[in-house]
């Protein structure tokens, strides 16, 4: 059983972010593995382990040939990675990202299952996994809080507001997993030492046959303007003169929450 995991390498959220003049995130600092994707990596490692064979391959679209986030996932136990990095990818939107990832999956070749997070921590459009599935012509199962594979069938528990739905499909398929689907392991020291020597296949837009379809040229979205989030309003203060309860009820009714 071979599992491909989409892993996004994102700017470290503990460092204050900066925007470029074109409104995209400054990604010049060393990125980290998106924590959302550590769940997919762990899930994949466990599924491969349970299947008793196969391997986990990572795919990532990232600027500047960045591998530091990939290394973390390789240290956790993934066998190899495909890294799409090329100046031609600059400006790629979510659909473009999905095109790149779908081509990477085809390049890997023998995937039974593709895992991604439901949404990334920096972009969080939450659209890439289904787009990848559509481009590959594979079923997409989303919001999985539990994933099981048996006899060529993937069964997930799809998180809903009220509980969960059980959803099944044949393989290959794309599954997006929620945080908490499994507890990600710490990379072992041995894994960390070995990560540097694991193969990373560096690919360009041309390698993937995507020249002209990605980057600013191919993007259907553009970021027109970036504004500060509005400051929180000061709120209203009541001195309790015995009518506070009524005022609170009126306030909540106004908000239509009661």
């Amino acid at each position, binding site marked *: 059983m071979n599992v491909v995991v989409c892993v996004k390498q994102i700017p470290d959220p503990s460092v204050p972010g900066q925007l470029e003049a074109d409104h995209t995130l400054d990604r010049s600092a060393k990125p980290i593995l998106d924590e959302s994707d550590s769940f997919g990596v762990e899930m994949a490692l466990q599924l491969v382990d349970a299947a008793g064979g196969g391997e986990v391959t990572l795919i990532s679209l990232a600027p500047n040939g960045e591998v*530091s986030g990939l*290394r*973390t996932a390789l*240290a956790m136990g993934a066998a190899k990675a495909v890294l799409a990095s090329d100046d031609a990818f600059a400006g790629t939107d979510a659909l473009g990202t999905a095109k790149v990832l779908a081509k990477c999956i085809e390049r890997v070749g023998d995937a039974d299952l593709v895992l991604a997070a439901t949404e990334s921590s920096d972009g969080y459009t939450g659209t890439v996994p289904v787009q990848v599935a559509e481009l590959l012509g594979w079923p997409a199962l989303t919001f999985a809080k539990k994933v099981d594979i048996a006899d060529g069938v993937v069964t997930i528990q799809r998180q809903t507001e009220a509980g969960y739905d059980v959803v099944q499909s044949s393989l290959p398929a794309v599954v997006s997993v929620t945080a908490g689907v499994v507890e990600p*392991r*710490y*990379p*072992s*020291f*041995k*894994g*960390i*030492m*070995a*990560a*540097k*020597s694991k193969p990373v296949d560096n690919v360009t837009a041309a390698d993937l046959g995507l020249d002209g379809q990605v980057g600013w040229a191919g993007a259907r979205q553009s970021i027109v303007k970036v504004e500060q989030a509005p400051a929180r309003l000061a709120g209203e203060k009541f001195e309790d003169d015995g009518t506070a309860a009524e005022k609170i009820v009126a306030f909540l009714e106004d908000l239509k929450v009661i």
Partner: protein
Amino acid sequence: MFEWSDEHQMIRTAVREFVDKEVRPHREALEHGDMPPYELLRKLYSSFGMDQMAASSFDRRIAKEEAGETGRPTADADGEGDAGGGGMTLLPIIELCKCSPGMVTAMGVSVGLTSAAIMNKGTIAQKKRWARDLLTLDKIGAWAITEPNSGSDAFGSMQAVARIDGDEFVLNGSKTFITNGPFADTIVFICKLDEGNPPAERRVVQFVLDKGMTGLEQSKPLRKMGMHSSPTGMLFLDDVRVGTDRLLGESLDAYAAKAGREASKATFTIERTGVAAMALGIIERCLELSVPYAKSRIQFGQPIGNYQLIQLKLAKMEVARLNVEGLVFRTLEMAAAGKGMGLAQASASKLYAAQAAMEVALEAVQIFGGNGYMAEYEVEQLARDAKVLQIYAGTDEIQITHIARALLA
């Protein structure tokens, strides 16, 4: 080496996350309650595969010894073993010290000191019997040399004694301030061999004891100034009978007149190099806490960091950090080159690092003012913990005598 390598940084990030997630939530119980550190340490070992690494490195070393070869085992192909270098040992020490330095003492005495004593002096059978489980933290070890009447003058005033009785030894004496003493499964007991000769001429010998042996009593943890996450206790031996299988080396021939002392001195060197890493963790944490505090605490209408008296404290902390980090890097470089620090150099490094950590931690308390004196702000704990670095593993004064003796020899 002037900075941590990429791999080292990954190790540091991972361990830092572990400490924040798994250790820090227990800080209260570890530092102010009765929680022993061992389960958390085992979790650290299993989370990062340190237990498996230790086991396979041990097995390779023993295989080599059984084949009659000497020297440390080389790393295997996938970079296991010693390839990550001392960084794999020192980074967890540094990161743990940012939360609970006592945990490092408990860990270091078990996997460092106690197992090292057995690995240095024991027979292959003894190493297999005791050292492997210590190195993986499956068993907890204690190393007992200090006695109520013998501390700095460890060998001279030592009263614990082994008498030969047929083909057995009878052990008597008390040990105090023994790290892990209350909980240890495996104890290296250092004493003098009474062959009817005057105490000053007696050979220093080492035995391995197991918890629960007849005549061995392990006290409850002693109340201390700091290092609460490292249980410290007393050991009482009342006619504990052991066979030669528990004498390290399994033969008295292994203990020529001064040899026992030399073996213990080798252990002192290991102990002292670990202290620099502990000091670095404490200093880094003090800076991490003090710098933002100096920027955000407003008095007389300004952040206190604007005052030169506070700036001087911060600047001196940074100087200490750079110097101690340099000592840690030196240790790593020397180990990578297959060289060990001699006793005098290890003493110099330990002396400087311990004093620097103490000074930095007290200044951190000062920067925090009244808050600094309150347990909630952490720095008071670091200050109490740092003090012991000037006392155990040889007091400052003893380090000075070792340095001076080497200079004047």
